[in-house]
């Protein structure tokens, strides 16, 4: 592997007595030493996202003495973040993540320069932003941004230290088009929305991003120091429930549209559209056409229907753990994953109005689509799910 950093730059750097005391456990490692620590000091790392993965990444990279840490984040700290995003505490709720993170990281290590970027990463700003750094760490939470990070990394020649999590499972790799495969070599196309559940639907074990993010931080430090065997061309899978690591070999796809010798993709694209999240694509993917009965009902409309005594069936399509948190009284319960096998249980309700609901309104829309396709004439989805019901109609229903 060729060195990521120009060794001459590090040679010219100097460590202050304070830095030497702080980094002493690094300095006595022969693999790091004064030279390595100076490399870290002169390095510039860009973290995309300061959430579950970004928390351990930021904490460890700041502590390790990465000289300049850029952070791209535009979100606000929410109470539900605190179960896993250790950059923040109760006092950060409602604050900008970027500000709270910058304070915490500077407190961990005042020698680190934090460069806050209060923007949503986009096709317009990614290339310019990435060019200013030595490598990029992907701590994002959605497919459009993951493809954008990957593509912009390949186009700017930067390594992409990748980590991703879902429920109890994580993936880690280093995608670096110049040295090995990129994310598109493994996943040429994203799954259409609806086929892969998100963490907001499926949940995530709070410790998991801690483990996966720490592994990403480890890869960053190795790449900057030029030591060890970086995770290029390998995908590590982690299963928290079984405590198992598995390693898979990844090869560069000779037909990769991005990082092969003859790329067909040479500029950034519209990633929301690519991932099928544009409004028309989303509707098309879910087979939604304009019909007489709308697909969605608001929580206030539903409340009015119930108050009027309108005949309807409330169908809760969430998963069992969510049912244990809260429900709307009088609902039937049939989780979306079991719907194809158990839809016949609803045959007795043919002709009645069915109002499906879930947590946020995505799964119930799928359920409505599925049931209509099976011949149930009157099925609608509660827009915004039980969360909207709690906010607008019945505050006794706890939000989660």
């Amino acid at each position, binding site marked *: 592997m060729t060195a990521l950093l120009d060794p001459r730059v590090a040679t010219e750097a100097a460590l202050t007595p304070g830095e030497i005391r702080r980094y002493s456990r690094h300095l006595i490692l022969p693999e790091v030493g004064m030279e390595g620590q100076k490399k870290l000091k002169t390095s510039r790392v860009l973290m995309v996202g300061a959430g579950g993965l970004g928390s351990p990444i930021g904490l460890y990279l700041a502590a390790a003495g990465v000289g300049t840490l850029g952070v791209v984040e535009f979100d606000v700290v929410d109470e539900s973040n605190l179960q896993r995003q250790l950059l923040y505490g109760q006092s950060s709720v409602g604050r900008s993540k970027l500000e709270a993170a910058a304070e915490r990281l500077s407190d961990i290590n005042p020698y680190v320069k934090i460069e806050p970027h209060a923007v949503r990463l986009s096709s317009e700003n990614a290339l310019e932003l990435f060019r200013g750094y030595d490598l990029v760490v992907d701590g994002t939470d959605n497919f459009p941004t993951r493809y954008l990070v990957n593509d912009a990394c390949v186009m700017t020649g930067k390594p992409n230290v990748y980590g991703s999590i879902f429920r109890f499972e994580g993936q880690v790799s280093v995608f670096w088009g110049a040295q090995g495969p990129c994310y598109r070599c493994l996943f040429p196309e994203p799954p259409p929305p609806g086929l892969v559940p998100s963490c*907001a639907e499926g949940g995530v074990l709070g410790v998991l991003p801690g483990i996966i993010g720490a592994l990403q931080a480890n890869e960053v430090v190795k790449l900057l120091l030029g030591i060890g065997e970086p995770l290029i061309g390998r995908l590590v899978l982690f299963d928290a429930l079984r405590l198992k690591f598995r390693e898979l070999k990844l090869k560069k796809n000779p037909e990769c549209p991005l990082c092969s010798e003859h790329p067909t993709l040479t500029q950034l694209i519209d990633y929301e559209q690519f991932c099928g999240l544009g409004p028309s694509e989303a509707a098309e993917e879910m087979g939604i056409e304009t019909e007489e009965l709308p697909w969605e009902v608001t929580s206030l409309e539903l409340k009015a229907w119930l108050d009027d005594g309108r005949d309807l069936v409330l169908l809760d399509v969430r998963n069992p753990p969510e049912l244990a948190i809260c429900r709307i009284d009088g609902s039937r319960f049939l989780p979306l994953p079991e719907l194809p096998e158990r839809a016949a249980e609803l045959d007795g309700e043919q002709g009645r109005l069915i109002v499906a609901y879930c947590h946020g309104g995505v799964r119930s829309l799928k359920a409505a689509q599925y049931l209509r396709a099976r011949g149930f004439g009157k099925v609608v989805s509660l827009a915004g799910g039980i969360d909207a019901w709690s906010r607008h109609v019945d505050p006794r229903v706890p939000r989660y």
Partner: protein
Amino acid sequence: MSVTIHIPTPLRSYAGGQAEVAVDAATVGDALRALAGQYPSLTRHLYTDAGVLRSFVNVFVNDTNARELAGEATAVAPGDSLMIIPAIAGGRP
């Protein structure tokens, strides 16, 4: 000939909650069809409506991507493990 298919977390709810399913199969394609046969609701997650394996479904035979071997025609032997590797992104719905 029994091979073990590892089901990733996102797909387990469509496979009766199973993490591993053993099937009798001679090729990767046979194994996936046998799996979909046992758990019909997995079908749309693995295949398009036209019955073609979805492009974002990666199947590894032991530690190698089946795409680098013979794809669905890749022969499998008893004791081989197949892993379906899903694209996972994280939090945003």
